[in-house]
């Protein structure tokens, strides 16, 4: 980090040095290894003149007359001051700085601060830890690395989204994702289209190429983010990308290749055939019956008839044993559908600069294929960043990052076309791949299409054969994006500067999808959407930094911010396709089109002042005033202050050389941050395009239709009084360094309360409206974040680092609107993730069994538990605590690093489990099918239940079956499971070739890395990998309904620097 800042400071500062000078040169080496160090900042003390050491650790400086001292600074090393004393050669060796308390970090609005001076918690992630994670999605690369940060990837699909929360959730309807800021420009991390059905869409932070990242820091509390204003109400992830450094061009080339495999599947039964009880006897029912159940006879009791014209199996139709050709019936494994995915990531960059200007250019190409055949995600990135000194006082910088990303995505979730839905319901006696045709060539129609054009699937077209879906239900997306900025900075004096930065994040997102004609079932559909999103961000800053006397420093900033976003989405849907296998809108008979426009505008002014006294007492005061377009005209002004203090006790006590406790600092902060409404246009009533619906099972009627157009009053009631919400956070913490810094402990406690949270409150429909946007909810968060860094062993050649981060939090919904006890966040009518008063945010809500006051299940006279008519909360998807434990062993150039991820607690609704139990394809239905039980509970009269029931006695028919009698997929309570896990999230072995070898190859550095991801997972969850979420990075979580499986991956990479 320090290097970056110095780079900026050094930009072209070696000008106007024309007078009496002396020349000093030398080299800088590592005191431990003796190797030269590249990139050490060499600065003439009291000036801004300096340079970085080159590949061989060498530097050469012209020192103006009157300057006497050189400063040598490098991250992780103690700073060295050398008096020149007339020498022309000064060689320096740098000792390690294990304390690292003077690390410079980037805080809000791009301001930099000495870590020591902060009154709030901030945590950095190293660039190597991001790149070595080998995650396509930057958000996933942060998983388990930062205390207070929870990341959940939605699935293992290429390009799928990941959900990131800093200190839990606050917003009910808006995004809870933190603000992502790249080089001072807030970027869009939105996503659209991740619902209970459809394909896995990306969150837009996926467009950032991790290889371009120089450093990343996470701002958590209100005091840290206040200056960013309302967009950082959920915290901020501050990314600084790589910059050029003065010196000869530096070229880096890297390549990595990883292989992905599905890491966990629900267990299936392999014993019973398709069918159901007929007159009390399990009877085989073949695909021609359209029936979906696997409650048929034992597969062992069936054999083939050998018919060669039977379309559903090459061996012929199934008949009872003894009536066919004696070839026993097969039990097929539908998981053979999955293949190895792979990802190839190629990157090249060149950077450098001269005295006045620097540049960084990079290109990246990532190409991945999924564990589902045909699935892809590709990302091409190009970046240029350059800075120059126009005059001695005026610096200009600009950056442009072009990204093209997208892929071929696969239907999933609650969707008759979904891969896992069709695959997991498939009966064991049906072979989706048709005798190896599908696995040999996933596009071979032999697997999914019959000779007459009908779909070949186990229910003859009701649910799609997975091979049908990947070929006949295409979905592609294509994003073109430019993130860039231009900035000017003018140094009025050495203690005052003004700067201006105009940033933009512009992208278009074109999506094309189709459901092909499914003869007998569907006439086909083509749907297109084209989204154009334009963000404009303007920052004007005046910065003041001055020492008063030797002990007091004042560092202040005032600024103005303007933000404008405009998102236009044009869509068209065409139904009734004319020809099969042709997925263009021209193929549709009836076409409906629409256009949505979202716009939001923010204006803010802000100020901050930092006071420090004698390097041990620090005080920061800041405030921001925002105006937002999404609030009611009278209530659109938002003001919020923050104050923080840091107190370095050890400095005051003169203990900085103390061998046991050289550093101890206490922090305290209090701050508020406001937020506006996440909806545009919620302040008035509107008549919109009319829609007739309200069935729940079938689509509605969208106007224009019936040869006419129509409008109707929106069922969302306008609220002209809508005002801002405010989150107030109190944060206390301390940072301790023991044993010359070999053990570091950072503990933070925070408690925050969000009031007047803007919520779209459901109204009782008899009001004539279904919702209104109100300032209603109160949501609180409190938690502990503990970071421990240690170096248990350190010798000349070997080092063992153990780093732990621990997070625990409680995220409670204290109140919602008057009379409202719960609000849906995501999910189904039957089971959903909700905000429920008095319950943890995101609680899983649904149907359950009747219980008495003591919590005993109430059992009917027939021995079956009774269903409760009213829905309620059944699970908490929030983990009790999470921890990331990283062990790193370094021996000379070899480094082995293992990141363990532990998540304790947290429930998930395994909707998949309930449904595959219903259909009789799960392992559970194999184990218990012929068993009986006495349900534990009480009868209506309070006496214990003693009535024995058979789970699935065929004599009772399907309706008497335990997994069917409570309705489709059972009731919510039957499918709630704990997701606790321990996993080896990352394993990295990397080896840097010795200088002797690299020099011989004419290279600077060569690093070889082996990376493994998710190589080991321990969990009792019965479905797929419980790190999953049906609804992507939406606010709801804890839902698994035929989600795509997650993956484990392993691969290697090489990075060469010249």
């Amino acid at each position, binding site marked *: 980090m320090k290097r970056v800042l110095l780079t900026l400071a050094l930009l072209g500062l070696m000008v106007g040095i024309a007078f009496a000078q002396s020349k000093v040169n030398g080299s800088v080496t590592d005191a431990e290894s003796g190797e030269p160090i590249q990139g050490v900042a060499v600065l003439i003390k009291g000036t801004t003149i300096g340079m970085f050491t080159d590949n061989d650790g060498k530097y050469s400086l012209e020192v103006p007359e009157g300057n006497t001292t050189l400063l040598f600074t490098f991250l992780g090393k103690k700073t060295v001051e050398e008096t020149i004393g007339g020498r022309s050669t000064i060689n320096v060796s740098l000792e390690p700085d294990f304390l690292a308390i003077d690390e410079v970090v980037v805080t809000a609005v791009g301001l930099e601060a000495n870590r020591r001076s902060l009154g709030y918690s901030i945590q950095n992630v190293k660039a190597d830890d991001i790149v070595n994670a080998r995650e396509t999605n930057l958000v996933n690369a942060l998983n388990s690395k930062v205390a207070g940060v929870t990341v959940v990837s939605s699935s293992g699909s290429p390009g799928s989204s990941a959900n990131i929360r800093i200190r839990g959730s606050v917003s009910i309807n808006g995004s809870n994702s933190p603000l992502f800021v790249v080089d001072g420009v807030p970027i869009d991390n939105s996503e659209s289209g991740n619902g209970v059905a459809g394909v896995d869409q990306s969150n837009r932070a996926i467009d950032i190429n991790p290889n371009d990242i120089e450093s990343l820091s996470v701002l958590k509390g209100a005091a840290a983010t206040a200056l960013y204003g309302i967009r950082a109400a959920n915290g901020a992830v501050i990314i600084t990308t790589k910059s050029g450094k003065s010196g000869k061009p530096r070229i880096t080339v890297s390549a990595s290749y990883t292989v992905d495999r599905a890491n966990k599947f629900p267990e299936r039964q392999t014993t019973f055939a398709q069918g159901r009880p007929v007159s009390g006897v399990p009877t085989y029912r073949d695909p021609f019956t*359209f*029936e979906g159940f696997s409650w048929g006879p034992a597969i062992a009791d069936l054999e083939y008839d050998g018919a060669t014209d039977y379309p559903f199996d090459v061996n012929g139709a199934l008949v009872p044993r003894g009536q066919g050709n004696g070839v026993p019936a097969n039990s097929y494994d539908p998981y053979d559908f999955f293949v190895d995915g792979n990802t190839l990531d190629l990157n090249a960059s060149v950077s450098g600069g001269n005295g006045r200007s620097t540049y960084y250019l990079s290109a990246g190409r990532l190409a991945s294929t999924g564990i589902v055949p045909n699935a892809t995600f590709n990302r091409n990135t190009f970046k240029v960043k350059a800075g120059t000194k126009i005059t001695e006082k005026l610096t200009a910088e600009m950056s442009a990052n072009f990204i093209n990303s997208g892929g071929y995505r696969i239907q999933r979730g609650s969707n008759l076309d979904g891969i896992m839905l069709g695959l997991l319901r498939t009966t064991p006696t049906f072979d989706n791949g048709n005798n190896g045709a599908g696995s040999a060539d996933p596009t071979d129609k032999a697997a999914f299409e019959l000779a007459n054009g009908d779909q070949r699937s186990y229910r003859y077209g*009701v649910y799609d054969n997975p091979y049908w879906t990947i070929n006949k239900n295409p979905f592609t997306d294509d994003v073109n994006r430019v993130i860039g900025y231009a900035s000017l900075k003018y140094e009025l*004096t050495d203690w005052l500067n*003004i700067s*201006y930065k105009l940033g933009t994040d512009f992208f278009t997102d074109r999506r094309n999808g189709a459901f092909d004609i499914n003869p007998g079932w569907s*006439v086909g559909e083509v749907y297109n959407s084209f989204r154009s999103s334009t963000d404009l961000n303007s920052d*004007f800053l*005046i910065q003041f930094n001055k020492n008063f006397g030797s002990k007091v420093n004042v560092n202040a900033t005032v600024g*103005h911010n*303007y933000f404008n976003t405009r998102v236009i989405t044009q869509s068209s849907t065409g*139904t*009734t396709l004319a020809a099969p296998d042709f997925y263009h809108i021209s193929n549709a*008979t*009836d076409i*409906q089109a629409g256009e949505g*426009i979202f716009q939001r*505008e923010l*204006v803010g002014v802000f100020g901050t002042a930092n006071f420090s006294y004698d390097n041990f007492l620090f005080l920061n005061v800041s405030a921001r005033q925002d105006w937002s*377009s*999404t609030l009611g005209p009278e209530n659109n002004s938002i003001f919020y202050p923050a104050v923080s203090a840091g107190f370095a006790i050890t400095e005051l006590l003169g203990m900085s050389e103390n061998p046991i406790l050289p550093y101890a600092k206490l922090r305290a902060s209090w701050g508020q941050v406001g937020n506006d409404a996440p909806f545009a246009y919620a*302040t*008035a*009533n*509107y*008549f919109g*395009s*009319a829609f*007739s619906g*309200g*069935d729940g*099972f*079938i*689509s509605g*009627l969208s106007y224009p*239709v*019936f040869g006419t157009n*129509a*409008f*109707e*009053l929106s*069922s969302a009631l306008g609220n002209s009084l809508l005002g801002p919400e405010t989150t107030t956070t109190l944060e206390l913490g301390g940072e301790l360094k023991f044993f010359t810094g070999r053990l570091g402990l950072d503990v933070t406690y925070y408690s925050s309360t969000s009031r007047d949270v803007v919520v779209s409150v459901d109204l*009782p*429909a*008899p*009001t*004539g*409206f279904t919702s209104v946007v109100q300032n209603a909810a109160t949501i609180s968060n409190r938690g502990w974040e503990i970071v421990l860094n240690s170096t248990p062993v350190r010798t000349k050649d070997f080092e063992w680092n153990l780093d732990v981060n621990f997070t625990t939090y409680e995220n409670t919904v204290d109140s919602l609107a008057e009379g409202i*006890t*719960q609000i849906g966040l995501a999910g189904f*009518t*039957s089971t959903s993730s909700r905000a429920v008063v008095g319950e943890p945010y995101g609680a899983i809500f649904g149907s359950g069994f009747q219980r008495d006051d003591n919590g005993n299940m109430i059992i009917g006279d*027939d021995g079956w538990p009774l*269903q409760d*008519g009213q829905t309620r909360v059944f699970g908490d998807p929030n983990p009790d605590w999470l921890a990331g434990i990283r062990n790193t062993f370094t021996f000379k150039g070899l480094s082995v690093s293992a990141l363990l991820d532990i998540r304790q607690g947290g429930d998930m609704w395994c909707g998949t489990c309930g449904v595959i139990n219903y259909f009789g394809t799960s392992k559970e239905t194999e184990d218990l099918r012929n068993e009986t039980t006495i349900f534990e509970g009480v009868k209506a009269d309070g006496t214990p239940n003693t009535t024995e029931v058979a789970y699935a006695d065929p004599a009772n028919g*399907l*309706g008497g079956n335990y997994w*069917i009698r409570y*309705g*489709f997929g059972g009731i919510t309570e039957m499918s709630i499971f704990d997701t606790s896990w321990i996993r080896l999230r990352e394993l990295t072995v990397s080896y840097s070739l010795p200088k002797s070898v690299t020099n011989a190859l004419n290279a600077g550095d060569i690093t070889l890395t082996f990376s493994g991801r998710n190589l080991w997972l321990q969990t009792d969850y019965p479905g797929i990998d419980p790190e999953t979420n049906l609804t992507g990075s939406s606010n709801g979580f804890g839902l698994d309904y035929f989600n795509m499986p997650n993956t484990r991956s392993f691969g290697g990479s090489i990075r060469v620097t010249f």
Partner: protein
Amino acid sequence: MKKIFYIISVVGLSLTMFLSSCDLAETNIDPTRLSDVSLSLIMPSMLSQAAYNQSGNPARISGIVMQQFEGFDAQQVAYTQYNIPEITFNNYWRTGLYAGVLKDCKSIIDKAQAEGQPYYEGIAKIIQANEYGMATSMFGDIPFSEALQGIDNLSPAYDAQESVYAGVQALLDEGIELMSRSAVAGGPGADDLIFGGDAASWIATAYALKARYHMHLTKRNGASAATAALAALGNAFASADGEPDFQYEDNQIGNNPLAKFGIERPNTLVMSPVFVQKLIDNGDPRFTAYVHTDSQSFHSGANTALTWAQNASAIPLISYVELKFIEAEALLWTGASDADIETALQAGMTASMEANGVDGATYVTDNGTLAGLSTVEEKLEKIILEAYDAYYGVAFQQSWTNFRRTGYPSLTPDANGTGGLNPSGGIPRRWLYPSSENQLNADSWNAAVASQGADLLDTEVWAFE
């Protein structure tokens, strides 16, 4: 120093002016919607929502409990076992009914009153009456007098079912009065997708609906309900041509909801074997118009013989068939001669044959007779049984209402029909209120449950007690 502040002021002020000059309130005006629209633009929405409500989820589930349909997969199987939880009708109640068609009615009534447009107001009141009538027959007590008040009443109370039925008749009377006024310029025309703005047709429809909702109360009002129904029938439409038909389209954008269900939820709902067997046993000529014989399904995209589940099948808000069965039953209640009753009964059956495009003359003569039936009860059963066969596809809810108020046809409840939602195990007597009410309108919901009885499927509602 002066220069510094000069530079800062100029740069800062000009940027601030440039970037903040846009009016924030202006930005928050939705460019994709209107703040007001004309009556003619709301009218189609109101009518299509009314038609959609009539043949959507409530119709199918009424068909299931009346054993004309049977669940084959997924939720429909649960419904067949009377596992019809409180979430079942959230969509209908919220999007279809109150914040759907009734909201549109309210928009039209308010606007028409302000603009002096009696026909718009009249049609909206007739539609509103029918929607409340259907809803109260299914749920019992429902919000009525405090409904649709927006921000002014966010927890509308439930009215007793008796008051709702009275309110339905009052709304119909108001509708008739409004439609009887002289036409004014700017009245409904092509935007009236049902009658093209014809006032007389709406008046006839209003009378037909009055007859229906009078007849719902035979259990309460006995013969006087029938007398009132007969009086209304005198002013109702006199042939199928006068029916308030909503015409759907032969595509997947504007198709009939029952056809939509067949297409979008394939193979989850099939014809009940009980009903199919009955049609076969009776030699009912409507068999091929009701059942796709290959698949025993109510729907087949290719089979154009199926009357009610074609994409372009029209749905009448109330059919001529129904009027004739109401008449037959009302005549029975009021002591008319068997011959008069038979005339009405056979007219109803014939109208049903014609609506289904089949030749049923012999069937009507053979079956449309009260011969050999001595008691009123036997004759009532006969009329309701014939209505049951004739209402298939067009008026499932009315069959369920007939069953609840007369006990016919006699059906055997599903063997697995006993559960927490239906302790008695009998055929459901009402639907559970949607879960949104218990969650969002808890006080009013609690009061309704206290007054009407537990929110269960076998709790009796006032009208059919």
